């Protein structure tokens, strides 16, 4: 029973992270899957969201901190919206510069902004506390839920230890519901948007920009909208991450964890398909967790197993693009109910 509870608790922890990744992947799906915008700086928008939320809803700087700004302790929803807004503004800026240019330029500009943001996070300690990171970011309703669980355990003496352990993980269950609820809301909204005239214009632009323009659509404006909305979703995912991890530091926003694995998730699940984006996030995060578990049995150093796992994911991306470019689910051919 104890082991079962341990597995269950791990499963909850795993699903929260995978769920947050699914939000990022849905954001990338709006950009790449719907519209064909190549954003290789996902980590930047994700990081901006996480740090914005930490500044808005996080604790004020402590006596040992280097940072002197932010920490207003505003409620979590304010932080969530704030991170969407700041991330969207950043995307507006990058998009405004590059959206009319060829797709390589957007790729180069996005990888650049992600790298510059990483440097800023590392070096501007007055804002981000630098390499020391931001600590003690509050999780929404953590106090009340833990208090209720504690008083429940106290008022029921003689509880079996496995049940006590299960209840102790109650907050993670709550956070999982929060993430999955957000994910579900997002999924239905995006499905509606994809099937709306707006979403169909995005697909048309992806397939043939000139034809879409000839139909009188303002191509640049639609692309910019998709780019900004996708970035806002990435920012919100960053906020969800910050309030779950409660600690932010620059390593979590390295190109592999912040950008590359998200691309592999989307391409594996099926670009252009929202179900595929979510499936890909859970599958690839599962693969990542599985290889972590298996790497303990290999006679290699930690650096080597880490490298090996990334090589595996990289190969997976290459193989999928070459041999199964539509991913597992693939895109639906017709999204309009009038065309069935």
């Amino acid at each position, binding site marked *: 029973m104890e082991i079962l509870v341990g597995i269950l608790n791990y499963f909850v922890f795993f699903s929260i992270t995978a769920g947050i990744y699914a939000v990022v992947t849905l954001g990338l799906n709006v950009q790449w899957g719907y519209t*064909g915008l*190549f954003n*290789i700086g996902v980590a930047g928008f994700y990081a901006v969201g996480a740090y914005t939320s930490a500044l808005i809803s996080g604790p004020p700087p402590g006596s040992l901190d280097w940072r002197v700004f932010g920490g207003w302790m505003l409620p979590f929803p304010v932080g969530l919206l704030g991170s969407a807004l700041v991330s969207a503004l950043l995307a507006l800026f990058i998009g405004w*510069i*590059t959206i009319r*240019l060829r*797709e*390589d*330029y957007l*790729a*180069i*500009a996005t*990888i*650049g*902004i992600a*790298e*510059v943001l990483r*440097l*800023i996070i*590392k*070096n501007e300690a007055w804002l981000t506390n630098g390499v020391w990171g931001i600590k003690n970011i509050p999780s929404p309703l953590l106090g009340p839920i833990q208090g209720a669980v504690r008083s429940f355990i106290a008022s029921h003496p003689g509880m079996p230890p496995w049940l006590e352990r299960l209840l102790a993980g109650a907050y993670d269950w709550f956070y999982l519901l929060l993430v999955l609820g957000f994910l579900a809301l997002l999924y239905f909204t995006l499905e509606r948007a994809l099937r709306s005239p707006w979403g169909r214009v995005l697909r048309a632009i992806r397939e043939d920009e000139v034809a879409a323009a000839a139909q009188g659509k303002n191509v640049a404006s639609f692309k910019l909208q998709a780019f900004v909305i996708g970035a806002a979703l990435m920012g919100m995912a960053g906020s969800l991450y910050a309030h779950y991890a409660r600690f932010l530091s620059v390593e979590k926003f390295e*190109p*592999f964890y912040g950008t*590359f694995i998200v*691309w592999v998730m989307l*391409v594996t699940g099926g670009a252009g398909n929202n179900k595929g984006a979510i499936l890909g996030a859970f599958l690839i995060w599962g693969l990542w967790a599985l290889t972590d578990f298996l790497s303990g049995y290999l006679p290699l*150093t930690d*650096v*080597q197993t*880490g*490298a*090996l796992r*990334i*090589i595996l*994911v*990289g*190969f997976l*991306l*290459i193989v999928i*693009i*070459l041999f199964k*470019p539509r991913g597992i689910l693939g895109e639906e051919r017709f999204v309009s109910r009038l065309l069935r």
Partner: protein
Amino acid sequence: MGPWERLPQLFAYGLVSGSVITLGAIGLSLTHSILRFANFAHGDLMTAGAYIALGFLLVFQRIPALRGHFGRLSFGPAMIPAFLLALLGTGILAIAIDRLVYRRLRRARPVMLLMLSVGVAFVLRNLILFSAGADPYYYSHRIQRAIHILGVRLKVDQVFIIALGFVLVVLLHLFLTRTRIGKAMRAMADNPELAQVTGIDTERVIAWTWGIGAALAAAGGILSGIENKLITPQLGWQALLPLFAAVVLGGIGSPYGAMAGGMLIGITQELSTAFISTAYKPAVAFGILVLMLILRPQGLFGRR
């Protein structure tokens, strides 16, 4: 010394790092002009070159006749075969990757190749990390005293880097203008369909492009290793942003533009350190890139 007095010295450093960036940027621009995609794995080809040279250097240093140093340089005779074999090896590596990966998508949209290159970049970097480890390596521990030239202080290594960078650029120019294959490359960059109907073997041109571009990248990687006295698996990745900035500055797909762009980016990056933290060197490159995209996206010398 105030920031303004330091500028001549920083300008000299800029010529050194500009030479390294130029070598990387030319290859990036060459592959873009022929294959029409931004190769995000190009920086990692630089890293591969630096490590292949390191491997051969360790072998050749066992030969007594090849030990020692050239004058005041930090390396000796063993570096010559190691350097040449690394250029060759990296060229072959790039051609092999093309045959295994990119060739399968010759007719696909260029952005799919771009995505593939991101995958290749992560695989390549981590293969190097897997086999060589995360700890930094050095070609040599030799400490050099700076010499005075024209009022600035440079190490002999740095003078060598500028000179070799210049020689390689001239060689590339001769290759592009005097040889059949070089002319075919330029023709294909101008108009691939027209090149094909005039009987140019496009696959052969593509192979040469990868080979030359990767060899130059390897040279850049090795020179960066000599200059910074530091070889890590992140070497090329960290250079990627300045490389792209140089390529965009010179006009994507124009190797001559990449030369000018590389020097300009190198010099600007070093000059900026008089005023802002050296940690922001890549951000300076990015700033130039953004300005360029706003003001003149076709680059200084590019056509629309």
